[in-house]
């Protein structure tokens, strides 16, 4: 079971969170094109390996937590707040 380090609550069980998908896609500015919004809503890199993603801590502080997790091993490299820059581990993509 994933244990996710919420920046506010500390290490918590996966069961307290709701997964919310890829955190690398950035919502375009309001005046961006339909195409850009389309890519934001639908196109995903879906990597096998490190993935930066959202876990919403609904069973705790209700903060959106950014998590760098490996989709192959389920290992977690880093967690942070929505606007923290979380680099991927060295040498990996």
């Amino acid at each position, binding site marked *: *079971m994933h*244990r996710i380090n919420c920046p506010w609550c500390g290490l918590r069980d996966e069961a307290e969170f709701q997964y919310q998908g890829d955190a690398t896609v950035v919502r375009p500015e309001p*005046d*961006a094109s*339909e195409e850009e*919004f389309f890519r*934001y809503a639908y196109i995903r890199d879906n990597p096998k390996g490190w993935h930066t993603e*959202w876990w919403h801590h609904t069973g705790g502080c209700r903060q959106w937590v950014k998590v760098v997790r490996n989709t192959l091993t389920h290992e977690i490299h880093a967690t942070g707040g*929505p606007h923290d820059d979380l680099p991927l581990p060295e040498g990996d993509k």
Partner: protein
Amino acid sequence: MSAHRLKNGGILINRSKPVNFTFDGKSYQGFEGDTLASALLANGVTLMGRSFKYHRPRGCLSAGSEEPNAIVEMRSGARREPNTRATIAELYEGLEAKSQNRFPSLAFDVQSVNQLLSPFLTAGFYYKTFMWPASFWEPIYEKIIRRSAGLGRAAVEPDPDTYEHSHDHCDVLVVGGGPAGLAAALSAAKSGGRVILAEEQMAFGGMVSPTDMIDGKPADAWVVETLTKLEGMKNVTIMPRTTVFGYYDHNVMAALERVSDHVKEPEDGMPRQRLWTLRAKEVVLACGSHERAMTFDNNDKPGVMLNNAVRTFVEKFGVSPGKKIVIVTTNDDAYRTAEILLDAGVKIAVIADARAELSDAASRIKARGVEIDLGTIPRQANGGKRVKSLTLQTLDGNVTRTFGCDCVAMAGGYSPDVHLASQTGVAPVWDDALKGFVPPAPIRAERSAGASKGSFDLAACLEEGHAAGLEAAGAAGFEAKAGTAPSAEAIANGPIAAIWRCAGNGKAFVDFQNDVTAKDITLAEQEGFVSVEHAKRYTTLGMATDQGKTSNVTGIGILAEARGEPIPDVGTTRFRPPYSPVAIGAFAGHERGYEFQPVRRTAMHACGEKLGAVFVEAGQWLRPQYYPKPNEGVMEAIYRESKQVRETAGICDVSSLGKIEIFGDDAGEFLNRLYINGWKLLKPGKARYGLMLREDGFVFDDGTTSRLADDHFFMTTTTANAARVLSHMEHASQVLWPDLDVQFCSATEQWCGVAVAGPNARKILEKAFGKALDMSEEALPFMGVQTFEWNGTTARIFRISFSGELAYEVNVPWTYGEEMWNALWDAGQDHGLIPYGTEALSVLRIEKGHVAGNELDGRTTAADMGLGRMMSSKKPFIGQKLAGREGMIADDREQLVGLKLIEGAERLRGGAHLFEDADDANRENDLGWITSVCDSPQLGCWIGLGYLKGGVEAYAGKTLYAVNPLFGEAPAVEVVSPHFFDPKGERLNG
């Protein structure tokens, strides 16, 4: 007691406490501390089950958790549980067990005729046959196959016992309470970390023998002493009868504690079993090993068992499984058994040792006068329902001699128990000296120790355990307090021979329970099932309840020989949890039946109850659905309620609506971005209907939101979407627009609410709230909001209307719900006030053409609902861009319409499809469907809402057919505007 119980020995049994039990209806007696298997053996019962496919008679193979054969039905009635391993079922007074998978009786099983068919019933048989004629499969062949498969019978009544979950955290989790595990727990505990020691069995000590010496004491005394020491340490939790069965991500382990399985029924308040979630910083796996059987013809005869099972029965339970025993072996462990048998006075007919040379251990036994045949392996067991003799052969297949016996002990070598270590997804590694797979290099914070790591010598197990405990504690951040490992005399074991199968022409079983023979495996290879995973699936090797604990390695050895490749190239199949089977009820815990999900009750639940409401589930909420009068049917009640509201007034509990309190200078801007319509200009004291889209442009939710102050809004959401809307807003404020000054939280359970609707609504409220509230048109116009003091608390009133009547929603704090209801109820008595439920609410809104859950199915656009014009073009909002995609604005999209039943059926039904021609209805000319229906008192007929291609514009006044093949009807309906009733909204003013 019976002759099979030895005079002495049996460290686990208490001879002064006899215990009565029954097996297949016959009464027997055993001792406290016995397992069902040891007690049956003590009574001379060797036949304990039938195999899966051929229904061959079987006795117990092992004395432990790995048992494939002796699986029985325990208990009866609602507590009947299939497939319980007799070898670990603890005996209790009144235990009832039955043999399974046999008819009519264990001794005489009709389906054992399958054995006659056995030349055909090989691996893969099913795939090649039962195809002729085609129509015979389900009604005939499949039924027979299903009935003859499947082992035991489950209960058919609800399980009367309870299960619970429990959680713990530790620095070091030690799995297994054998010598390695005990040593690990002790050294880890001494360094101060929090230690949990879990052991599957009732007794600790694992495979140690009372004849072993540890720290100069008999091993069983050392075990007790060590446990006592551990129990005395505050940082140690000892968990007997607890199987750690699953190794999940991030070092979380799941364990099952069998709290009450060793008693007839759980004591008051106690669960049957407890499922533990253990979060360990570091793990020590000291799970021991499993002995392998040897593969020779008829090796499944009752009385043929594992060498260490024979030893365990003698040493731990004081039972000799036979009076004259043949031992067949590939390694030195057989001689430990021989020694113990000789000491117990049990006769050994011969020991057949596959190895060419006499080992030291063997010579010691030879010196005691036992015949040892070197270079000899078993050929076939003989006998009926119990082994009578064993024929031996040389390694190259020459039959030598046959020895009479009533028990055969097989020492095929040990396989380290790498189950948990491999569950993490890495494959174990072949060790050729050991002739077994050992744990892979850890990828988690874990390490193995003792036999499970491939160390079979007691001294090494103790040392490794000690070191592993220290290492684990150190890794968890606790300073190692060295000390020395418990010591035992190191014994050099001789080599192990790799004998995967012994030559023969008959059935030599590898996987006993699933009746997989050596030939099945070679046949699979011959047919192209070369991969070990293919061979497993084709033959079912290792797929039975024991998951191949005693058989997988042998099967892999045979496959490797057939492929002509070394074992490491073949590899193992994938290890999966659970380590041993776990009751489904334990996973569910408390969350079963009515407790599956918590119930949410509104503050006014009791008021509804008092008025005879029938409640309905709305998500987790319970809401009054309707309030039947005596002798009134559902439909009549709904009709009456919805009619009466428009005539006088009705009161409805609307507390389950989601409520969100929003603060901040940018709250208006925030709402502007969330909703499709504008919010900035909304004045304090006013409410507005709002519609939200998802980012993909489809409608997400709707509700009424009010401005209470410049920087304070109060939002309502639908009951169903309350949580989702809150999450959506948190995303927007935390992730998308952190710069907006906006703060909000749920207020759903702070405020409860009622709607009072109908021409008399104002009068009733005036009477109930009196001077507290100014109800005048000026003070509280349509879409007006007021906060007022009532009864010592703050109340809010919203003049909004879902029903289309003059209506108000009043909110008070949850604690005042009943009082408010009662006040309104009393005030309404002179004004024809009735309570109405969700059904009447639905009728009223359908008559008005207001959309609800049925119309908001996640695939509709605002325009589909006729609300396209609400979409502001003056500001950006979520969903705006993608709502413009060509398919979402296409002309052929279905639009919301009203439908009136004309004729052809008694009623309308949701889910009917709309067609121009009822006789030519198919998916290609399908025009739409009906979403909601009701029997409308105002229209005097059944009406409905639906989505229709072309909408009202194309079909107004036209007749369509509501085709409903499921109900065999296709009534004619007229297409009308969805605003059936009072389209101008005149009634909003009373």
